[in-house]
């Protein structure tokens, strides 16, 4: 057990910082506040991701044959901290490198790997995630979108909701029912330009481009576009969610936001003893969340499943983000109610969605209770 960084890890952090200093435009913070699914951030992601790849910072943790250098899970996470801290210039493409790519690496056929991982490597492909539905979000087993097999293809009918990035996405990692019960689902890598797909944006408080409805009317998907075996979607989903839950070092932006709010208060001579306590408390929560996330990364770097630990980490991150958001509302409301600091707006939008994305916070607690505490399920009430 030790809690230091290797010289290599320190070098990667410095390299990522220097890259960002050289490649982020002066007005980047205002762009980032528009949220990852916006046209502006999506466009920018197509500019910067190829450069990140060129610098070895996009997918260094991938195997060499797919464009990586077999770097450790730690190095990728360190890069993620640096990128998230400045408002995530990869925009929607963080999905690709954090968990869609790794899931395809684990379950994809050789053809799927070549086709999709090559595109992700180029840094200009946008994905969306078709998991939640009006009838089943937290209860993924309740999904109704159905893919009916017809020879070497399936016909998909149904709808998805809350789908981030769908309007601009070229591909969707889609969960659809192919059998009965909780286990009867399969995962597909569906091109979004297929006839029969309709995307409707949902106006929201988390920003433009982050929430959509997606409708599927007799959409054709080929058997070769299925990821993993038929009816084995649950395993694929679980694998991907472990990456997604601790994919984003959310505390990094929260800490930066806290620091900026404090600097504003100091400048206005408004950082008194009570505010100092509240700021320290939020800081400690972020540091606790950071250590939980690091434990999850440690598990990942050792190829352990670590589902309960990822859920614990996610829960700690959600609470820490809220503490920082509340600190701003309590002590620096002028930053919330104005455009004085776009980073505060960016953080607020991310923070309020954190307890819902990648499984509601209560689902994480269920997983912890079951997997880590060995507690059962209530019956007959």
């Amino acid at each position, binding site marked *: 057990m030790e809690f230091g960084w290797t010289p290599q890890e320190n070098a990667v952090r410095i390299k990522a910082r220097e890259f960002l200093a050289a490649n982020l435009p002066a007005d980047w913070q205002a762009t980032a506040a528009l949220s990852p699914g916006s046209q502006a951030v999506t466009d920018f992601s197509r500019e910067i991701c190829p450069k990140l790849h060129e610098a070895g910072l996009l997918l260094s943790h991938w195997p060499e044959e797919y464009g990586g250098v077999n770097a450790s899970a730690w190095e990728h996470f360190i890069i993620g901290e640096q990128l998230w801290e400045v408002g995530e210039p990869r925009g929607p493409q963080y999905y690709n490198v954090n968990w869609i790519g790794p899931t395809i690496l684990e379950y994809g056929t050789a053809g799927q790997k070549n086709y999709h991982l090559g595109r992700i490597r180029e840094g200009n492909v946008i994905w969306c995630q078709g998991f939640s539905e009006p009838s089943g979000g937290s209860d993924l087993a309740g999904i109704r979108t159905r893919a009916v097999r017809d020879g070497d293809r399936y016909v998909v009918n149904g709808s998805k909701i809350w789908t981030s990035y769908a309007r601009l996405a070229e591909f969707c990692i889609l969960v659809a029912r192919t059998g009965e019960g909780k286990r009867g689902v399969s995962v597909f890598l569906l091109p979004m330009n297929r006839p029969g797909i309709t995307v409707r944006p949902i106006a929201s408080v988390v920003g433009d481009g982050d929430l959509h409805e997606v409708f599927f009317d007799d959409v054709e998907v080929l058997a070769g576009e299925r990821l993993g075996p038929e009816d084995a979607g649950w395993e694929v989903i679980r694998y991907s969610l472990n990456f997604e839950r601790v994919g984003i070092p959310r505390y990094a932006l929260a800490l930066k936001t806290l620091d900026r709010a404090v600097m504003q208060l100091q400048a206005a001579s408004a950082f008194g003893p009570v505010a*100092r306590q509240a700021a*320290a408390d939020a800081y400690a929560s972020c*540091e606790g969340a950071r250590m*939980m996330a690091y434990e999850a990364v*440690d598990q990942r770097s050792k190829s352990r499943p670590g589902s309960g630990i990822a859920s614990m980490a996610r829960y700690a991150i959600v609470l820490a983000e809220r503490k920082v958001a509340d600190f701003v509302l309590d002590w620096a409301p002028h930053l919330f109610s104005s455009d004085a600091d776009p980073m505060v707006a960016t953080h607020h939008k991310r923070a309020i969605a954190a307890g819902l994305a990648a499984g509601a916070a209560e689902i994480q607690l269920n997983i912890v209770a079951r997997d880590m*505490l060995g*507690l*059962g399920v209530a019956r007959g009430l």
Partner: protein
Amino acid sequence: MDFDYSDDQHLLMTAFESLLERFRAPPPGQHGYVAYSGELQAELAASGFLEITGQPGFGLLEAAMMTEAAAHCPVSVELAASAMLGAALGLAAPVAVAWGVGRPVRFLPVARTVVVIEDGRVTAGTPCADIARPVTGVAAYPIAVLSALPHDARQLSGTEAATVRRRALIGVAAEAAGLMRGAVGHTVQYVRERRQFGQPLGNFQAIQHRLAEDAQLVRACRWLAFRAAYADDAKEAAVALLYAQEAMRKVINDCHQFSGAMGLTLEFPLHLWTYRLKVLQGEAGGRGAQAGSVADQLWPLADAA
């Protein structure tokens, strides 16, 4: 970064855990308020574990690991201060840490050294009956009120004093992490066995979610305390203890709530952990002092900058 024991740490902790083995089960029958084991204290002194920070390849992190592991036992023993600061400063064990004169001090009745941390100075000396008035109460530590500085008290140098201030916090944080792990572990076991409405209490989500939150807090406390020990850093020490003192408010109350009236009895061992935690809640000035210290180190006041 590595969250698993190294081979050497594994050997060390296996040996240390085997020393704790006999003290792991709560003694049968009624437990007194004070759960202190002079026998374990003597074994610790004889074992050499208290000098761990001086051993090649080991350091403060290993002392924190042992502190956490010992606190997980239902009996208390003074280990943190002896191993973390006493050994480095040549102080005779057991070491009691007092945050000022006139206050109740953990382990003072059994200590051979008392370190007194005050604003502006840190002193160390030998306690005696004249200045240590034993108190009775419900706290699970042996406690006495320190009425004056020891007659042989010597003021520590600036560097020594900084070491004491920093490591005393890390010791309390590591001890709190082990105590909370003990309390939550005992409670989880209880709600698995205790049946109501025809099933284990632990089946109910109202209980599950709160215990899952507690388990997360305990784990984060442990990592923050260990990281602070690894870094031997003043800010991280204050962060670790702030997080622990904040967490224990919820953890103590949840564990008692889910243990029902059984948790109020002296027969049920929960109090052996929680009534030590209640003492630690206000240690070193409590979470307010820790938060102030974290803020001062992160965002120095204008006139101090």
